[in-house]
């Protein structure tokens, strides 16, 4: 029975290995424990971790360029951005049709805003283009109608591009356009498709078929209308001109057996010229004819970007790689440093102010300690906003503090101190607000320090100061550490108080993040700044763990 070899597994009474039966016995306990925390876990996961993860993902996500301008991005990839020449005509061509569709879906302004983060002026460039791209299409429509009145009727186009009964459908084109429209649509489309592109038409008129298909998807899927009865978008006419003037069209038309062959033949012989897209864009805005504009689009066309992170540390992404921002735009690193320095200052002030209070709390008799504890906790019962606003009243130039100083005579009436809307204001108010977070961990640690240690030290010959410094203080360090981590981490991400009392010089990085979230709507940069803040905090936490040891931190 008991003569098990030293390395053979120990067996339970029923012969199964002991480890397995132990883990089976523990599994029930573990499942029960898991079931108890499951509601909170799920709640936190859904309401906290997933949104934060999504938010942080935005700091590298850059699909808007590629998804809005898929064909342009593809063509632009062939262009050498380092050269001084403008991109070739096909880039402008695809930009025309991509942008036209985006404008149709009202997505071009978003793209403009996105690119505006990289270079100002992009936003208005895109907004303007969205308005003016209709005109060349209308001109083309007039030209087509003059050649043959049938081109003025929407049914003609439907007949050509729709796959009638028994005609092959270009599935690839349809699904590609559907995917594209679904991405461009703000809400999931609810309409029904009532159009399918004819494979024959799309072979003969590839660009026009693409434009018509995307129009068909919008009309059916998004607007839920009948494609046959709807007027096509203007870019179709330009696309048609483009297709009938392409080399080899006449030969292809000869082989074509679909509807409206004669109308198409009329176009082929009308002597049309291919549209000049470069010129179209140049007429919309001179900036489209600048290499810079295209370089920016090309640099930021990838689905993921390091651009937001580079921006967050005062750099920018250029075709040549990362580069430092021009001097007048470098604010964020300075803001990070200021945030850290101010947080450290607040932490230090909290230690200095909190330590004696915590000591008193831990050493007073119960009744007085409870009273003092109430005073420490009192601020928790008052709204943060109220406390901060109170500091605004206290610190302003005609506020309580200045009035008292003037009354005492320390400060001249016409030379009152500036105590608010600067770093002094932020540090004062935040020290006050965060002080309980320092006192409480200190107190809970000090409470565990037996007073007999001090007595022992004194009986061994130490003066009061030596006894405190050599015996009491080292034992209270875990409390200081816990309080410091708490205060530092809370203050480094503080928002409300700096916003109210910080003015421009006393604000933190979080205020900048809030600005990018709610005002400039540059969520990518905000996410990058947030990620950096998170990493800084985690790194400091790690350093602290290495130096002091997180096991030494006690919160209660």
């Amino acid at each position, binding site marked *: 029975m008991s003569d098990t070899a030293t390395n053979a597994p120990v067996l339970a009474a029923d012969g199964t290995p002991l480890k397995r039966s132990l883990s089976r016995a523990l599994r029930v306990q573990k499942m029960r424990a898991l079931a108890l925390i499951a509601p909170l876990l799920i709640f936190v996961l859904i309401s906290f971790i997933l949104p934060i993860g999504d938010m942080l993902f935005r700091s590298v996500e850059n699909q808007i360029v590629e998804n809005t301008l898929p064909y342009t991005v593809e063509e632009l990839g062939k262009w050498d951005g380092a050269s001084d020449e403008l991109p070739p005509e096909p880039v402008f061509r695809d930009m025309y049709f991509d942008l036209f569709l985006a404008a149709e879906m009202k997505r071009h302004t978003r793209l403009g805003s996105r690119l505006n983060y990289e270079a100002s002026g992009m936003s208005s460039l895109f907004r303007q283009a969205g308005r003016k791209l209709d005109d060349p299409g209308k001109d083309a429509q007039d030209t087509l109608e003059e050649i043959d009145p049938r081109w003025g009727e929407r049914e003609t186009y439907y007949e050509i591009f729709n796959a009638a009964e028994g005609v092959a459908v270009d599935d690839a084109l349809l699904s590609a356009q559907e995917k594209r429209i679904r991405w461009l649509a703000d809400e999931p489309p609810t309409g029904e498709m009532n159009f399918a592109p004819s494979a024959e038409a799309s072979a003969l008129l590839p660009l026009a078929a693409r434009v018509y298909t995307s129009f068909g998807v919008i009309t059916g899927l998004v607007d839920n209308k009948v494609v046959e009865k709807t007027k096509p978008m203007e870019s179709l006419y330009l696309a048609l001109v483009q297709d009938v003037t392409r080399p080899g069209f006449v030969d292809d038309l000869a082989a074509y057996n679909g509807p409206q062959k004669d109308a198409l033949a009329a176009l082929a012989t009308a002597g049309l010229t291919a549209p000049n897209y470069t010129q179209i864009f140049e007429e919309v805005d001179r900036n489209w004819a600048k290499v810079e504009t295209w370089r920016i689009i090309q640099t930021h066309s990838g689905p993921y970007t390091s651009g937001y992170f580079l921006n967050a540390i005062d750099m920018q992404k250029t075709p040549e790689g990362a580069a430092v921002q021009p001097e007048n735009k470098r604010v964020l690193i300075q803001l990070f440093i200021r945030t850290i320095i101010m947080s450290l200052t607040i932490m230090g002030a909290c230690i200095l102010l909190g330590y004696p209070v915590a000591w008193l709390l831990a050493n007073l008799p119960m009744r007085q300690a409870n009273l003092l504890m109430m005073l420490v906790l009192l601020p928790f019962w008052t709204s943060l906003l109220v406390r901060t606003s109170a500091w605004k009243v206290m610190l302003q130039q005609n506020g309580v503090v200045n009035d008292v100083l003037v009354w005492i005579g320390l400060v001249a009436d016409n030379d009152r101190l500036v105590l608010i809307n600067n770093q002094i204001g932020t540090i004062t108010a935040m020290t006050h607000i965060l002080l309980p977070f320092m006192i409480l961990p200190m107190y809970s640690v000090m409470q565990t320090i037996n007073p*007999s*240690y001090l007595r022992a*030290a*004194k009986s*061994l*010959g130490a003066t009061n100061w030596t006894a405190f410094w050599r015996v009491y203080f080292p*034992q209270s360090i875990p409390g200081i550490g816990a309080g410091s981590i708490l205060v530092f981490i809370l203050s480094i991400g503080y928002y409300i108080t700096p916003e109210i009392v910080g003015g421009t010089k006393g604000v933190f990085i979080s205020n900048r993040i809030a600005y990018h979230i709610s005002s400039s709507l540059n969520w990518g940069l905000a996410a990058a700044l947030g990620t950096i803040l998170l990493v800084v905090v985690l790194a400091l936490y790690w350093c602290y763990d290495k130096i002091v040891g997180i096991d030494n931190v006690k919160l209660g």
Partner: protein
Amino acid sequence: MAESHSSDAFVEFERVQKSYDGETLVVKDLNLSVPRGEFLTMLGPSGSGKTTCLMMLAGFETATHGDIRLGGTSINNIPPHKRGIGMVFQNYALFPHMTIAENLAFPLEVRKIGKDEREKKVKRALDMVEMGAFGGRRPAQLSGGQQQRVALARALVFEPELVLMDEPLGALDKQLREKMQFEITHLAHQLGITTVYVTHDQTEALTMSDRVAVFDDGRIQQIAPPDILYEKPENSFVAQFIGENNTLRGVVKEIKGDLALVELDNGDLIDCKPINVSKVGERTQISIRPERVEFDKKRLQPGVHTLKAEVLEFVYMGDIFRTRLRVAGNDDFIVKTRNAPDQKRLQPGEQLEIGWLPQDCRALDA
């Protein structure tokens, strides 16, 4: 050793009083003198004022009234760190953030003793308590007994003339406690230092001390060597508090020199030695140790009074038998007999007559 009971007092309490709240006195008019080299134990129930006395001596409490002298000079106004008194605390109070060696070096460091000498002294002190190999450890890595030794070594390392110990063995288990009791007394006598030891454990007090001061209600009830304290308690509190004791209540019937006749509350008569009763008719509490009770008539003096008793319970305890009797209405009358081959084992329900030598039974205050 011979001069340990000499009259030149090293520690002196003179009319010392202490009150915390200004309404009640915790220590009432305490007079005490401890000669150099003596091992004195302050024994008493909790709240009797013994720890307060110790704290006043150490300097952590100030006397409300009276004078405390050390080596002839008043130390009332000397702060604790200048008194040079070694102290061992109930919870040892070893500094948890320092190693054992650092703990021991601490009192030497604050006395600005050079590094070499410091190390020498620390080593000697650790060797003295057989902890030489543990200098690099932290207090939390030691067992209770080991911590106790270190605390002792720390209190002795700076060679104080007086060492105070505040229930230092309270947290140890019985076996370890007995071992440490022996070691502490041995060390104290070997080094010839004066020791004031506080405990509420009377066995500890009896086995360790040269003299024991029994505290109750803020006063010293009796101060005497252990044997005197046990065999000749001067009042009923001491008799009750030290060792096991049987008490019976009654009235003094007559006093004849060294002999008093007491009529118990049930009317029985018994002979005692009068201690603090002086006149006939006074109520008294008589005290007799369990091991001095006899139920074998042959061993009693002829003509002495005896009492009727009924056996209630017999407990076999190995070395002794402990028998509970009902005597004169007292159901808790204990008799202890040695476990010898010819010793009679009493059976519950058995009726017998008990008696004792009159000098073993003391008539004390009621």
